[in-house]
């Protein structure tokens, strides 16, 4: 196993980098779309069940099947990095959307009333009251979607997007246990580090918000 690492460490590092790129870009996009959409849903609460239901449905589609479906679509689909990011983005979107919505809806109505009574506009309420109060829940959602996306990104290898899945699937094909291990271990480590880091952040944020 060590021999494999010494020989192929450049390749392992390259694929880890690719894995991080796929996960990072899709999480970033999901945040960019999910956070404002989640806030918007708290202002139009009757629409919320529809949106949350739709994104939840996407998440129930198995990742391989989702990539298969995306093969058929132009622009966002096909082969390569683009359909992989589309699929991972759709997975992350649901968790982020839901946590932004749940976080803001759970803010104490008494605090919102005070903010309004002090003369805050809707945007100021969001900035000074709702988002800071919802932050621990938002970070919890980000943690869950990060772990989910890092795991699902291994499957991206199927459509030629690269990432640590390459080593796993190639290793399985060749019956090379070392190769499988050097794909699986870094992927697991990434997920664990993301989980621990974001859990620590969540605790720090929650302390001052009681």
């Amino acid at each position, binding site marked *: 196993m060590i021999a494999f690492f010494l020989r192929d460490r450049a390749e392992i590092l390259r694929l880890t980098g690719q894995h991080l790129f796929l996960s990072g870009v899709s999480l970033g996009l999901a945040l960019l779309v999910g956070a404002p959409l989640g806030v918007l849903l708290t202002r139009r609460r009757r629409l919320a069940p529809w949106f949350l239901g739709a994104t939840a449905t996407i998440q129930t589609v198995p990742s391989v099947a989702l990539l298969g479906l995306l093969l058929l679509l132009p622009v966002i689909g096909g082969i390569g990095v683009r359909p992989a990011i589309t699929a991972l983005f759709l997975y992350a979107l649901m968790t982020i959307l839901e946590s932004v919505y749940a976080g803001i809806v759970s803010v104490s109505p008494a*605090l919102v009333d005070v903010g309004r009574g002090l*003369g*805050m*506009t809707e945007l100021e309420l969001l900035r000074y*009251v709702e988002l800071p109060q919802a932050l621990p829940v938002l970070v919890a959602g980000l943690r869950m979607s990060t772990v989910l996306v890092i795991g699902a990104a291994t499957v991206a290898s199927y459509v030629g997007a690269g990432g640590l899945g390459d080593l796993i699937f190639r290793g399985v094909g060749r019956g090379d246990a070392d190769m499988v291990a050097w794909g699986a271990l870094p992927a697991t480590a990434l997920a664990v580090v993301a989980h621990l880091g974001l859990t620590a952040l969540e605790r720090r944020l929650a302390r*001052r918000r*009681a």
Partner: protein
Amino acid sequence: MIRYENATVSYSGHRALADVTAEFGTGITTCLVGASGSGKSTLLRLVNRLVEPTSGRVLLHGEDVARRDPVALRRGIGYSVQGGGLLPHLTVADNVGIVPRLLGWTREAREEAVSRTLALVRLDPARYARRHPSELSGGERQRASIARALAADPEVVLLDEPLGALDAHLRETLQEELRELFRRLRKTVLFVTHDMRVAVRAGERIAVLDGGRLLQHGTPREIVEAPAHDAVLALLGRRRDELARAVEESS
């Protein structure tokens, strides 16, 4: 001056406030007293448009508040609620300085306002400014909340059960202190409480509400000595002589 003209508020068929006409004078603290559901908080919240009248109007310095932009209106009116309503993620200084910040004051002006108002409510700025609400006692939170209501130096201050979450001893200290403070600053204050003992000590005028109606409006002495209605008598309770003594002491 705050003037109500036939103000009525109905929520889905229920009348929270029924045809109230009254005038609360400038520079005077008026206590709005009643049981829960009497309409006292609704009456208060009409002033800063947290509640809109179903019919009738509310005039502030002669102008119908319905014509004012609610955000600008509220920034010009102090507001404090039961328990303080401090934002838990902000320090005392940031809480107290929030309205000046919304108004776009400079940092120096904000810091000056925070120190000045914290001193008014007897919280040493050096000790308290950087603390978070979770590091304050109940009384300190309420003091900080009142400092926040005063920070932008509003003419009108609305207090919704400001002493409701405090124990009896603390309540007595604070109610005397608040009356002196507001009298000295010449603020027009509406002060909601369910407790007649608080009202006779804190208020220069008392307005008694029951079932959405304004039953009696007068000085603490008038209310205690000549209750105009059975419901007013009920609120005075069995310890009327104690209240009468409190009126003597405060005047």
